[in-house]
């Protein structure tokens, strides 16, 4: 059942290219311009990427049609077209001007309304409930249950409940039956239900036979984004079972109760949904690195590289949900979604803190038909540094365990242990380091490396709701920028509490959030300054020289 990595050479990649073409990495301009070719933007790896190259929403095979996207005629946005100069950008942003504010106020209004809803349960309490008691069930007939901002249901094609974010699956079996009836009704006519929009709610359906995933959301996310999250849930289930096993089970028995096999994994799925509401990694489809001096990171990477074994495919060192180092087998690329699932697995369970764990895991984007075997352990009790060694051989525990020992020994010998500890003390940097007074926060993603960087979220986004609101704004800009029927390159967004700017090119994506008192001209010069800063700091914020065994 081991995932067969060796046969995977003829990778199928949706958009055709794994890594940026060679020879593009040589010119790294001092001051990046909008015309940057992919592979030369700040954060682009010098020796190719470590991830499979992805597009946003690459998995949604059926592109959204324009009809589903409501659009008011007043909204004017930058048309697609390659901007070539800074002047052009600034002109585009000027044209965008205040028309967008009308829409912005709507968003504010809606967010305020939802916050004032008295029955709204605070996200923290519900999360704590689900972690502490595993699955302390809510009464699904209560208003509190209805008031959750996002419900997620998974059911089998027989209409049997598999998972529900809130409330027990049993209590919801008739609801899920109705959902399945809706799906089947349209399918009988050779149609497919994608979403229902009513009363501020979006009901989004994703069909991945033998499962049906449904979200009922009143967030500002686009249908596309909600569907993207549902796909993550689907991949999460695959990572526990493999696609092959899942299909086999339902071929054998159509009305199988999948909850039996998924028992105990609910908290992993709950955690994934929580993470997606807080961590921009999922939105960006990219991975964030722990800020670390390049010399330290290189020492860590080469220590990992030397502690190899025949069956090892990936060696991953991470801290929190940030990547410290990743070493991979030559010609094998990890998909960001797979890495996100690994991050989620580790952050959802404290069981890895004790001893050395050895668990089968399917990386669905790599190979959905087989299991890898992951050795998971923390380097030290008190240190938030988790090592993940992914092997193809389930009998290889002791060999892989020895790789860990060798890695730790090398770290000690190179004397980087202390530097690592120092870096872990400040896992996030402050936006103040950039030196732009009005700048509050930003997200910058290098497309060719699949990595992004973002400072700590600071005041005024202190409370959880505020942080979620900020992420909600990014989600909104992201969905506008990536709308498949009408993608946008530049968005300038004026709100009462902050201004935001989004800039998407073929090489990078940048989202900045700055003071509501800042001017548009100020924002544009901030972008320029910020890009220079990221270029200057890129070897600390990104992994520029990914290693292979």
């Amino acid at each position, binding site marked *: 059942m081991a995932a067969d990595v060796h046969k995977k050479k003829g990778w199928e990649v949706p958009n055709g290219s794994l890594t940026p073409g060679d020879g593009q990495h040589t010119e790294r301009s001092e001051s990046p311009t909008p015309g940057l070719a992919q592979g030369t933007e700040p954060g682009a790896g010098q020796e190719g990427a470590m991830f499979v190259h992805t597009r946003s929403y690459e998995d949604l095979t059926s592109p959204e049609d324009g009809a589903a996207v409501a659009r008011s005629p007043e909204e004017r946005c930058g048309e697609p077209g390659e901007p070539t100069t800074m002047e052009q950008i600034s002109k585009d942003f000027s044209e965008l001007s205040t028309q967008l504010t009308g829409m912005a106020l709507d968003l504010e209004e809606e967010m305020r309304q939802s916050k004032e809803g008295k029955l709204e349960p605070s996200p923290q309490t519900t999360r704590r409930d689900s972690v502490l008691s595993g699955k302390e069930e809510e009464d699904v007939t209560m208003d509190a249950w209805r008031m959750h901002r996002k419900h997620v249901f998974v059911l089998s094609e027989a209409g049997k409940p598999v998972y529900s974010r809130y409330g027990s699956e049993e209590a919801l079996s008739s609801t899920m039956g109705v959902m399945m009836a809706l799906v089947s009704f349209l399918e009988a006519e050779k149609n497919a239900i994608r979403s229902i929009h009513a009363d501020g709610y979006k009901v989004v359906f994703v069909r991945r036979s033998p499962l049906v995933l449904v979200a009922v959301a009143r967030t500002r996310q686009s249908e596309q984004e909600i569907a993207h999250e549902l796909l993550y849930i689907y991949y999460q289930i695959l990572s526990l079972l493999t696609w092959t096993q899942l299909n086999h089970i339902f071929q054998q028995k159509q009305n199988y109760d999948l909850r039996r096999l998924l028992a105990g994994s609910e908290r992993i799925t709950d955690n994934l949904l929580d993470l997606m509401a807080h961590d921009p990694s999922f939105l960006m489809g990219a991975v964030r690195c722990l800020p670390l001096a390049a010399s330290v990171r290189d020492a860590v990477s080469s220590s990992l590289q030397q502690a190899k074994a025949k069956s090892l495919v990936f060696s991953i060192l991470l801290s929190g949900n940030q990547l410290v180092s990743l070493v991979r087998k030559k010609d094998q690329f990890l998909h960001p979604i797979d890495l996100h699932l690994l991050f989620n697995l580790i952050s959802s369970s404290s069981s890895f803190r004790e001893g050395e764990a050895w668990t089968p895991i399917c990386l669905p984007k790599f190979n959905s038909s087989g299991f890898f075997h992951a050795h998971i352990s923390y380097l030290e009790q008190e240190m938030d540094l988790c090592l993940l060694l992914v092997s193809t051989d389930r*009998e290889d525990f002791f060999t892989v365990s020895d790789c860990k020992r060798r890695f730790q020994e090398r770290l000690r010998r190179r004397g980087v242990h202390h530097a690592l500890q120092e870096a872990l003390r400040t896992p996030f940097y402050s936006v103040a380091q950039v030196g732009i007074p009005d700048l509050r926060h930003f997200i910058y993603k290098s497309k060719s490396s699949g990595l992004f960087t973002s400072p700590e979220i600071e005041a005024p986004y202190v409370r959880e709701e505020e942080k979620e609101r900020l992420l909600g704004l990014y989600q909104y800009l992201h969905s506008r920028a990536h709308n498949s029927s009408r993608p946008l390159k530049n968005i300038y967004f004026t709100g009462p509490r902050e201004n935001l700017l989004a800039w998407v090119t073929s090489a990078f994506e940048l989202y900045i959030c700055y003071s509501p008192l800042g001017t548009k001209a100020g924002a544009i010069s901030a972008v320029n300054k910020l890009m220079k800063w990221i270029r200057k700091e890129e070897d600390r914020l990104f992994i520029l020289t990914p290693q292979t065994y």
Partner: protein
Amino acid sequence: MMAIRELKVCLLGDTGVGKSSIVCRFVQDHFDHNISPTIGASFMTKTVPCGNELHKFLIWDTAGQERFHSLAPMYYRGSAAAVIVYDITKQDSFHTLKKWVKELKEHGPENIVMAIAGNKCDLSDIREVPMKDAKEYAESIGAIVVETSAKNAVNIEELFQGISRQIPPLDPHENGNNGAIKLGKQTSQTGGN
């Protein structure tokens, strides 16, 4: 110098009965109320003196959830001992224990030392499995039996001491690795007996 003998031990049993808590108490003398369910299996070691030998326990704490069931043979194969755990407040978990014993009898190593641990004995006021049932059952299969509380550190040491005593003395022809078989291809031939 005392000889070190490596003993592979695996823990089996229903999910949530306290396998990891028993191991955690034994190895680190520590108890965590909010321990997460084990994913896959977890490996730890602890060395304890036994007579004129040192016994190094190589402990495989397996996940009780059904989807990991098929991995169990990897862990009991070549084991010198198996600790099968149930929760004295859950009759179902005692039923699962019997299934594990049956599987071990059919597919486990011959002469594997079996130890039954009725965990959570600090909760005896909501007990569902009488001590007598466990004793009778253990006798019928020739297993060690003890009620434990990982929370209050009751009978945890004793459980492993009991296993140590049941391990047959070293055969002079063997190389001191009785049961200390690696989780690898070289395993089953040498066996733990």
